[in-house]
C-alpha cells in the first residue's frame, strides 16, 4: 500500500492529571485514512484519556495532535468539525426526543439543518421507529445507538468509539460491528477502544496495544497475530504419566495435573524451522505414546496478556 498521509498524527502526547498521575507518556501514533484501528488495553491504560484529548475534552500537558490537517488546539474548529465521538459513558439527555437530540448535535457541530441526513442516520441505526420517543424511555443498547447517531449527525470523517460494545448484548454487538464496517465502506476512519480481544481481532485492520500510557505495539491485525502468535500442541497420552522424564523437562512442555495430556507451546515462526517434529521424535524415543494430538494458534487474548507482562518486566528491569 502506498504511504498516504495519515488522517490523524499524534506526536509526543503526554497527559499528567492534576493529582500528578501521568496517564499518557509521550505517545506517538499515526492513524491511517479509512482504517479501523482498535486500541486495546486494560482498564486505566489511558485509552479514554487519549481519545478525550483528541476530541477536546481533556487538555494535553504536552505534545500535538493534527486531525485531518487541523491542529486540535490552534485550529480546534477545523479539527472538531471532522470528528465524531461516542463516549464510553451513556450520557444522554432524558427528556429530549431522539429526533431533537440528533438535530441538536448537527447544529452544535456547525452544520445547516438536514432532516434528510438525520433520517438516513436514524434509519441506518434502526432508530427511525423511536424518533419521537424520549431518550429516557429507551434501553441501554438503544441509548448507545442514539449516541452513535449524534456522533454521525455532522458527517464526520473520523469517528471515535470508546468501548462501544461494553455491556451490550451479543446481538447488538454484531449489529454494531456491521454498522462500523458499513461506515468504513463510506470512507470514515474509525478508532475504537475495546476490552474484547475477539472484537479487535474481528473488526480492526490494525491493533494498537496501550498499557500504562504507552503504545506497546501497533501492527496490522494479521501481522500482529503472526509475529507474536504462539501455537500450542496438545497431546492426549496413551498411558498416564506421573512425571516428565528428567531430560524432557522444558519450560515449553507441560504435563497436566492428572498426567493424561501434554501441552507444548512454541512460536508460530519457529514452526518453519522444524516445528513440532523434534519434540515428537524425542517423546517417541522416551516411549511416550499418544492417541491424539491437535495444535492451535493462540488467541489475541493470550498474546495480549504476554505483551503486557513483558512490557511490565522490561519496565521493572530498567
Amino acid at each position, binding site marked *: 500500500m502506498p504511504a498516504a498521509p495519515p488522517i490523524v498524527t499524534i506526536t509526543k502526547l503526554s497527559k499528567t*492529571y*492534576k493529582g500528578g498521575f501521568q496517564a499518557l507518556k509521550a505517545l506517538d501514533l499515526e492513524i491511517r485514512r479509512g482504517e479501523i484501528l482498535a486500541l486495546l488495553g486494560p482498564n486505566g491504560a489511558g485509552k479514554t484519556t487519549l481519545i478525550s484529548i483528541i*476530541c*477536546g*475534552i*481533556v*487538555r494535553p500537558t504536552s505534545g500535538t495532535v493534527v486531525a485531518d490537517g487541523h491542529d486540535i488546539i490552534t485550529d*480546534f*474548529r*477545523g*479539527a*472538531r*468539525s471532522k*470528528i465524531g*465521538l461516542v*463516549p464510553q*459513558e451513556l*450520557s*444522554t*439527555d*432524558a*427528556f*429530549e426526543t431522539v429526533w*431533537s437530540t440528533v*438535530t*441538536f*448535535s*448537527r*447544529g*452544535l*457541530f*456547525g*452544520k*445547516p*439543518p438536514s432532516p434528510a441526513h438525520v433520517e438516513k442516520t436514524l434509519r441506518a441505526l434502526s432508530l427511525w421507529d423511536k424518533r419521537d420517543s424520549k431518550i429516557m424511555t429507551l434501553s441501554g443498547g438503544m441509548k448507545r445507538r442514539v449516541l452513535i447517531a*449524534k456522533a454521525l449527525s455532522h458527517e464526520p470523517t473520523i469517528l471515535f468509539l470508546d468501548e462501544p460494545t461494553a455491556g451490550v448484548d451479543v446481538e447488538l454487538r454484531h449489529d454494531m460491528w456491521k454498522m462500523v464496517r458499513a461506515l468504513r465502506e463510506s470512507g470514515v476512519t474509525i478508532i475504537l477502544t475495546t476490552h474484547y480481544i475477539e472484537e479487535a481481532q474481528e473488526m480492526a485492520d490494525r491493533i494498537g496495544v496501550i498499557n500504562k500510557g504507552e503504545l506497546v505495539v501497533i501492527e496490522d491485525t494479521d501481522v500482529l497475530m503472526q509475529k507474536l502468535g504462539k501455537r500450542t500442541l496438545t497431546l492426549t497420552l496413551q498411558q498416564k504419566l506421573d512425571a516428565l522424564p528428567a531430560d524432557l523437562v522444558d519450560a515449553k512442555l507441560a504435563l497436566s495435573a492428572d498426567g493424561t495430556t501434554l501441552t507444548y507451546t512454541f512460536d508460530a515462526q519457529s514452526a518453519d524451522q522444524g516445528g513440532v517434529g523434534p519434540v515428537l521424535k524425542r517423546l517417541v524415543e522416551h516411549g511416550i505414546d499418544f492417541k491424539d494430538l491437535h495444535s492451535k494458534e493462540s488467541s489475541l487474548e493470550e498474546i495480549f496478556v504476554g505483551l503486557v507482562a513483558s512490557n511490565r518486566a522490561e519496565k521493572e528491569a530498567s
Partner: protein
Amino acid sequence: MNLHAIRAIYRFEMARTFRTIVQSIVSPVLSTSLYFIVFGSAIGSQMKDIGGVPYASFIIPGLVMLSLLGESISNASFGIYLPKWSGTIYELLSSPVSFIEVVLGYVGAAASKSIMIGVLILVTARVFVPYEVMHPVWVVAFLVLTSVTFSMFGFIIGLWADSFQKLQAIPLMVITPLTFLGGAFYSINMLPSPWDKITLANPVVYLISGMRWAFFGASDVNVGISLGIILGVLVVCVTAIAWIFKTGYKLKS
C-alpha cells in the same frame, strides 16, 4: 462564528423552558404577583407615599428587578450545570464552538426567559396597581441589561458549582439577602445612619434605583451610576467566562 451552534443551544434551552413552563415561568410570575396583592392592594393603602409615589407603585420596579435577578441566576446556572451533572457536557466540549457561541446560546436563552418573566410581571402588576412609566425605553434597557448581566453571573455559578448545594448556595445565601436589602420595599433615604451609607456597598441598590428612575423619574442614586454598575458587572462576567473557557477551569481536566 458557528451560528448553527448558537441556534441549536438557544433552541435546546428554550425547549427546556417551555417543557417546564409551570416552574420556569408561571410560578415566578404568580409568586411576584402575590406581593402586588398583599403590599399593593391590601397593605399599600395603609402606607404613606414615598417621594410622591403611592407605595403600591413604588415597590413595582424593585419587585421586577428582584425577580429578574433571581430568575436569571437560577435559570442560567441550572442550564449549564445540568449537562455537567448528566455528563452530556462532553458534546459541548468536543464541538467546534468557543465561549462566544456557548455564552450567546445559554445566556441568550436564560436572558430571554427572564425578559419574558419581567414583561409578564409588569403586565400582571398593572391589573392590581395603576402605575405610569416615565421612561419606557429605559425600562426596557434595564430589563434587558439586568437579565443579560445576571444570566452571565448565573452561568458562571453553574460552571463553578460541582454539587446541587453549591448551585443553590449563592442565590440563597448571597443574592436573596442582597435583593431584600437592596431597597425593593423602601427608599434607602429612609434607613437610619450609618445603614444608609453601608447599603451603598450593595450593588443591587443601584439596579433597583435605576429601574425606579426609569419608572418615576426620581431615584436614590444617580441613574448614570446605576447604569455604570450594571455595565461594570457585565464586563467582569464576560471576562470571567472568557477566562474559564480559555483555561478550561472546572470544565476540562
